[in-house]
């Protein structure tokens, strides 16, 4: 039988990562233009959080595949059903791609990596140029996808008034009516 809500561990991971990812997007955008003593602090924070998010997203993809999750409302139109599926694939893809692009970009640029991680790409300036720009654009795409995700969650909660937002709600769930 399908559950009505996501597993508590899945909900914990969702909200933990939501906070970290939103923080990362703002840290990422502000650190590149910051010339003050905050710059090196933000850079190391960005690398450490990025690495943490890589571990978390791998764990999360595992949980998503292993645990049963609530189905979408049965009366959801096919187009919205498709949009829900596609946007989630995009979210998972970007959550996985962002830290990997960051890691590969540091490797290709000949930069040191946190925890002395090995290089996952050869030291190559042209490859660095591609990866660095990809990391930036993927960040903006992730931000846009998160806004769509947030909009969809609010649409489910306020317009359709179905149980979709409640199924991912961080607090304790009410017994089903």
């Amino acid at each position: 039988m399908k559950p009505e809500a996501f597993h508590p561990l899945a909900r914990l991971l969702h909200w933990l990562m939501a906070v970290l990812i939103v923080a990362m997007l703002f840290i990422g955008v502000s650190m590149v233009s910051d010339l003050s003593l905050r710059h090196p602090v933000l850079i190391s924070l960005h690398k450490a959080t990025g690495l943490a998010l890589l571990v978390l997203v791998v764990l999360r993809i595992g949980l998503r595949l292993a645990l049963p999750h609530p189905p979408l409302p049965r009366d959801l139109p096919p187009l919205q059903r498709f949009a829900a599926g596609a946007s989630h694939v995009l979210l998972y893809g970007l959550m996985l791609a962002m830290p990997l692009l960051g890691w590969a970009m540091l490797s290709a640029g000949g930069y040191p990596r946190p925890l002395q991680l090995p290089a996952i790409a050869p030291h190559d300036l042209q490859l660095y140029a591609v990866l660095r720009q990809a990391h930036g654009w993927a960040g903006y795409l992730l931000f846009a996808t998160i806004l769509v995700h947030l909009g969809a969650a609010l649409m489910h909660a306020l317009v359709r008034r179905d149980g979709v937002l409640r199924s991912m709600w961080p607090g304790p769930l009410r017994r089903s009516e």
Partner: protein
Amino acid sequence: MNRSWPVRQTRPPANQTRPGNKRFFAAHPESAAFRQWAASYKPSNSFASTQYHSINAFRLIDAAGAAQPVRWQLEPQTPFTALPGQVDDKQYLQHDLQQRLAQGPLRWTLRLVLAEPGDAVDNPASPWPAQRRSVDAGTLVLEQVDAPEQGACRDINFDPLILPHGIEASADPILAARSAAYSESFNRRSRESLGTGARP
């Protein structure tokens, strides 16, 4: 050491500054130390006989974890000769460097100048007294020079905050500003390399 700085062919007398500079100096009295230094500075006729030094301080960490603030200097082992007043070759210093390297390697002594309590470790505009104790930390040997358009010079970000174990940044805010600016510069030249297709 292989960046292309064109040699200025005619140098204005030291007491003659442009109006823009004058306004800047007036607005930034902390530039007095630099002006004092610039007034007595005699450029050498070769990169090989030039002294290079960090204006920023770094912290050396010993085995017990105690920090010693230092600034580094590269003292040339080639004797000083002043730059002639008139130089026609715009690549004079580059050509000189190539000629000298064709005859053999060039050497500099790496010297670490140790700060004493009270020395400014977070202000690159404030020089330390000349009598500060220093230690010889090694010799830099230069054997060949690459073109700046490709190779190690282009493909590495010479970020002053990328430091080996045991050396840390000081609280100097200019180090952070350099790190940020060099990163943007590295990104731009990496994008430029996509257009030119030059590979090391």
